[in-house]
């Protein structure tokens, strides 16, 4: 039975349970002294029955669906002849893949090897059994739950409190998704990164100056081992991010100051949407623009004044990324500046300072923690930004700080390593997770420092 049918059946059962529970509650109450005899409103008894029917069934369904693939695969492996089981893990993985593909293709007789044919048939049989048993178990669980729920419908059952306890726990569960996500991120990058560090030493990864992850097809090929020194990537990331921040910080800060202190209402109604639109444009559009328009423009400009500019220069990517970050910096600085009490600003103006002096000598020092925090957050976004650099920066790992040359970044390498066919046993793929771990740790540190700066050094004026 396909999963949709199970779900629809389950929903129908829940509705049925709700109405049964409600009806039974009303009947129970009639026997006692009218509606007053019930502890809760009749609908709550219906919800209670539906919850009893639904929760165990849904838990079983989720667990079964999550783990059935692994269990079926391992059962299929167990049924293979001993010679096949004795293969190395990689070989076995390949064989299993072949068998699964064979079974899914629907034409088992296409395979020559009778052992694989048998295994594919076994796999299909297991799959059919699993899907039927799943449907049966889920429906039976729902029915048993419904019966238990119905037995609990009595005049003095505190149905509302029970339902509300379940709701509260469900809400706690939803809030805990944030923790689960963080745990998921840490473990997924950490485990694969640790596997990577088994074949490449962390020392080489962190301090090596040579990055060429291409592993050779033939053993005697030049550079067959692949080099995993990530320094060029870190330098490239830093270079592009610094260019971006050099553009975004002054422009974003000045935009925020101008909009909040100088602009007339009419200018503001035009200029604010401009920044909002810039913030809403997807990064892939910026990337396309950088590669198609900005990079050739910079190249031609460089040629005109006699400079040799690479067609995928760090400058083009950094420039466009800087523009992308302007609204981000501007809105964070705006928050920081508008949090400065009005009395300080008016006091300074009243003493005869010009507006710019007030801003430079009173407002900005008072808002500095917020502004610095905002810059750190912008830096973390620049480091993690992917699409602009994937489309406009280079692929080759040059160790240079010349903005006119092509450099590559951590995110570009993650994307190039992980798109296309993947085998989860070679260092090339695992390197992406090591880079991801580095990226996660760096941005996490920046975020924590930023929040800390904002909280700790904020002046309390009230």
């Amino acid at each position, binding site marked *: 039975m396909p999963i949709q049918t199970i779900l629809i059946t389950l929903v129908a059962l829940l509705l049925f349970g709700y109405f049964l529970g409600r009806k039974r509650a009303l009947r129970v109450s009639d026997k006692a002294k009218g509606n007053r005899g019930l502890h809760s409103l009749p609908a709550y008894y219906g919800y209670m029955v539906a919850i009893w029917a639904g929760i165990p069934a849904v838990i079983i369904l989720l667990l079964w669906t999550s783990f059935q693939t692994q269990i079926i695969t391992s059962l299929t492996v167990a049924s293979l002849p001993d010679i096949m089981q004795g293969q190395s893990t990689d070989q076995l993985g390949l064989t299993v893949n072949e068998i699964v593909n064979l079974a899914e293709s629907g034409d088992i007789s296409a395979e020559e090897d009778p052992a694989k044919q048998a295994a594919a048939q076994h796999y299909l049989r297991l799959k059919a059994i699993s899907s039927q048993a799943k449907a049966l178990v889920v429906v039976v669980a729902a029915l048993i739950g419904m019966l238990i729920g119905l037995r609990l419908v009595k005049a003095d059952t505190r149905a*509302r409190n029970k339902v*509300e306890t379940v709701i*509260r726990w469900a*809400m706690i569960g*939803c*809030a805990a*998704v*944030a*923790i689960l*996500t*963080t745990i998921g*991120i840490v473990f*997924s*990058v950490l485990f*694969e990164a640790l596997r990577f560090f088994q074949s490449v030493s962390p020392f080489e990864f962190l301090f090596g100056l040579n990055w060429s992850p291409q592993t050779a097809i033939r053993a005697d090929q030049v550079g067959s081992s692949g080099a995993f020194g990530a320094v060029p990537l870190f330098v490239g990331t830093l270079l592009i991010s610094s260019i971006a921040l050099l553009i975004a910080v*002054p*422009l*974003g800060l*000045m*935009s925020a*100051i*101008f909009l909040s202190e*100088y*602009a007339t209402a009419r200018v503001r109604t035009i200029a604010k949407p*401009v*920044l909002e*639109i*810039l913030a*809403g444009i*997807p*990064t*892939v559009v910026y*990337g*396309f*623009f950088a590669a*198609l*328009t900005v990079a050739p423009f910079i190249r031609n400009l460089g040629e005109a004044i006699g400079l040799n500019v690479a067609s995928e220069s760090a400058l083009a990517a950094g420039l466009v990324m800087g*523009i992308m970050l*302007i609204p981000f910096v501007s809105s964070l600085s705006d928050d920081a500046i508008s949090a400065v009490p009005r009395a300080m600003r008016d006091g300074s103006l009243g003493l005869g300072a*010009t*507006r*710019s002096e007030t*801003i430079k000598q009173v407002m900005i020092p008072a808002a500095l923690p917020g502004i610095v925090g905002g810059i750190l957050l912008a830096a973390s*976004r620049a480091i*993690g930004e*992917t*699409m602009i650099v*994937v489309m406009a920066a280079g692929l080759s790992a040059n160790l240079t700080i010349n903005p006119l040359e092509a450099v590559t970044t951590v*995110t570009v390498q*993650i*994307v190039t390593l*992980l*798109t296309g066919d993947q085998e989860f046993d070679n260092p090339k793929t695992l390197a*992406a*997770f090591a880079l*991801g771990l580095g*990226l*996660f740790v760096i941005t*996490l540190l920046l975020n924590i420092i930023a*929040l800390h700066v904002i909280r700790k050094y904020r002046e309390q004026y009230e």
Partner: protein
Amino acid sequence: MSTISSKQKIEASLKKRYARERRFRLYGVVSISISSLFLMVLLFTIISKGLPAFQQTWINLDVTLSPALLGVDANADPEALFSAKYAKVIKASLKEMFPGVKGRKQKRALKNLVSNSAAWDLRDKVLENPKLIGTTQSFWFLAKDDIDVFMKGGIDRNLPESDRRIKDYQLEWIDKLIAEGRLEKRFNTTLFTAGDSREPEQAGMLGAIMGSFFTMLVTLLLSFPIGVAAAAYLEEFAPQNNRWVDFIEININNLAAVPSIVFGLLGLAVFINFFGVPRSTPLVGGLVLTLMTLPTIIIASRAAIKSVPPSIKEAAIGLGASRVQTLFHHTLPLAMPGILTGTIIGMAQALGETAPLLMIGMVAFVADVPGSIVDPATVMPVQVYLWSDSPERAFTERTSAAIMILLGFLVIMNSAAIWLRKKFERRW
């Protein structure tokens, strides 16, 4: 004496101070102008490059459906009609129109005047009405992408022949076709009705639009209830100064700032490799985007719930409602406009997100339009990325057109958010 000199001093310094003031103000104007200028250049480039893609060139050919060439006659069964040699017929009609074409290169160029979809179009027409066989009919076919680019002025005929993709003999043919009124530009419906294709003239956005739709559906169905429930818990029920609650809040704030590509790594390692969710599907894309959108929705919903005045909640509790009842009957309905605004903005972000989807295989070439959340699919921004990577010139204008369509959807979503905020905003 001293008073005069200090007055003079002040006056002299005033001049400087005012000049500094004007300069400072100018920096502000310049900053805003740079952003505006950049935005205008960006939009202008995209629109001017993308507009031609909404038109497409068609070629009119007189096709003689001779049974000898097709290898079937009008009475053949549908299967034979299906596999008849339509490409040959089209080739023959081109040869007839341009006699005297010599050499393999020129012959191939002649065949490539029309798209290779022409044979399939012809097949569909014949299957519809087999009586056409044996007659000569005039049909409109899609032109090949090079012809299309030339017709829109993308190739300069004054360049030396070696620098152009359209050679002199092809120019002659095109001129003849134009003179006979056999070349026509029409509105490009393919862009909206076809899936992706390797041939630019046959490539469309429908597959990506449907992929985005299914992905957003999964994201919305998961992130809205989870986000609202989490926000309601943190705002209304969570105990103050509890270590766990603080930890949850720190996590939410951090997740909002984690690079999107890291979520892609999470999706690859956990959803695909551990739980076996099928690759390249809207299901796994929606799961990853849910985790990314949750912080946005939670933060916006918390702000909306917080803005509901406590007097309303207290009145409900005073009348005997439980706290859960107060939440569902009063707080949430009153906070709903704010929650919906935040949700739409989160969805708009998710719709434009590309990087994490590259990790989970949504970057694969998918020609079929997906029909459910477990069909292989791609989404609009990834389609933009894929097309921008293609070397054909015709794909450049299609990339811009795809961006215009994507931006159109984003404008609609953001306008809806603004409208909601304006219409239902309440000051207590």
